[in-house]
Structure formats: C-alpha cells, structure tokens
C-alpha cells in the first residue's frame, strides 16, 4: 500500500466488488474483528481493557499485593504516609535543602499509588451499579400493573352492561 505519497490511489481491492449488485456472494466477506494487540498510527493498542498494574508502568507498589485488598485501610494508610512525607519535605528544605529531590520523588510515588488504588476500585463500582440496576428493574416489573389493567377492564364491562342495548 502506498503510505508515503501525498495523493495515494484508492486501495486496489475495490475491483473485487464489481458484481456485488448481481451476486452478493461474489465479493469477499469483511475481515474478522481484530483480536489481541494492534498497531495504530505508530502506537500499540490492545483490545482487552484492563488497568495496567503499577509494575507495568515502572512504579513501585506501596500497598500489599494479594487477591483481596482492604481498600479503606490502605487508602487511609497512604494518606497518613503522604502527610508525613510532606512534613519531611518541609524539614529537609530547612536543614539540607539540596536533598529535596528524593523526598519529592517519594511524594509523587505516593500520589501515583493513591490514584492507582482509586482506579482499581472502578470495576467494583461498575459491578455494583449493574447489581443496583438489575434490582430496580425487577422491582419495577413486579409492581402490580395487572391490578390496574383489571380495574380498567371491569369498568369498561360495567359501562357495556349498563348501556341500554
């Protein structure tokens, strides 16, 4: 395919669809959807939507790994850590101002961990929203619509009976 000319010709496979009006099967099927990783405009994208772990991004993980994380406890612990680091930074700026870089790095590491924890709560939130919607739907469907309809039906029958034929 001519990717570098400024006015590239149309892709050559348009000729395959010459007889499409008469016979729909003479032309090739559309290609199957892409799976896995694919390159697009120089960047690599993936079809699976998963939050990359901190190690994938090259960031140290400060809270313990494991299948079930106690989010509230870890978030509060990280918050306290953050405040302590800010105080440390203030101290370092007073005593040894040239060593600020390490402290600033630590603080940004804590922030990255905080944001990553919050992002990993999103799938849980999505499932909880789904559960809530399903419950609402079931409640709505169970609400007595039939009684309403039967009441209207009785009224109409009464009108019919009462009308002089």
């Amino acid at each position, binding site marked *: 395919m001519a990717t570098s000319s400024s006015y590239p010709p149309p892709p050559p496979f348009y000729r395959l669809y010459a007889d499409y009006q008469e016979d729909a099967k003479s032309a090739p099927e559309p290609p199957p959807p892409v799976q896995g990783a694919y390159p697009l405009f120089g960047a690599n994208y993936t079809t699976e939507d998963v939050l990359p772990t901190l190690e994938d991004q090259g960031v140290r993980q400060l809270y313990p790994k494991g*299948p*079930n994380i106690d*989010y*509230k406890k870890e*978030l*509060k612990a990280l*918050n306290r850590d*953050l*405040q302590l680091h*800010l105080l440390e*930074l*203030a101290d370092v*700026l007073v005593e040894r101002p040239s060593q600020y870089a390490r402290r600033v790095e630590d*603080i940004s590491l804590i*922030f990255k961990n*905080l*944001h990553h924890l*919050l992002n990993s*709560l*999103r*799938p*849980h*939130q999505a*499932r*909880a929203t*789904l*559960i809530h919607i*399903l*419950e609402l*739907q*079931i409640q709505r*469907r*169970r609400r007595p*619509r*039939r009684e309403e*309809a039967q009441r209207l*039906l009785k009224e*109409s*029958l009464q009108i*019919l009976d009462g*009308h002089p*034929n």
Partner: protein
Amino acid sequence: MDIISQLQEQVNTIAALAFNTFGTLQRDAPPVRLSPNYRDPVAPLSDDTINIAEQPKLMSAALVQAAKQFDMLVSALPLSEGGEEAQFRRITELEAENEAVGEELQMQLEAAEEELRQVQELFKQAADNCLNLKRPD
C-alpha cells in the same frame, strides 16, 4: 459526583494545596543570616511581613483539613465485602430472577391482550346495536 470521582478530586486538591504551600513559602521567605561575618539582613516590619507569617499557618490548616476530608470520604465508601466472586454470583442470581419475572410479565401481557380483544369485540357489537336501533324507519 460519585464517591470515587470525589476521592480522586480530593487527592488532586491535596496535591495542589501541597505544592502551593511550598511554592508560597519559597517565594515569600524573608532573607536569612548565612554567615557570622555578615550582619543580620534588614527585615522591615510591615503589613507584608505580618501576612507572610500568617500564610503558612492558614495553608497548612487547609492542607490538614483536606486530608481529613479525604479520610471522611474513604470511610463513606460503600465497599461490600466478598470481593469479585460474590458480586458475580449476585449478578447471575439477579439475571435469573429478572428472566423469570420477565416471562411472567410476558404471560400477563398476552392474557391482557386477549381480554382487550374480547372487550373490543363487545364494544363493536354494542356500537352496531346502537346504530341499528337508531336507524330511521
């Protein structure tokens, strides 16, 4: 705004307060005596210097306030215990229940449509009778 977005906003607020605090301190700090050979720097007492002394207190109070707000929001997180599997199980249960209720509703709908048809038939006959009675002789 949902609670997770509020938490994210709060983290960003804490970060903004932190670097604003340090930036203000660095910008407004009065000069300091570096060596015993030189005399103390002149620090005139004016409105500005009073403000400069007050600002760190206000800003650090705001920072601690923001951190407490974050803790409060974390406590308000509605995290149900049981993890992913429990949620998946609940979703499949609810889906099955929804299916059953949906089928029931469908049957009720069909019965109601049948009755509607009958009532419409009756109305048609009643209307025909009325028209027949009113036919001028």
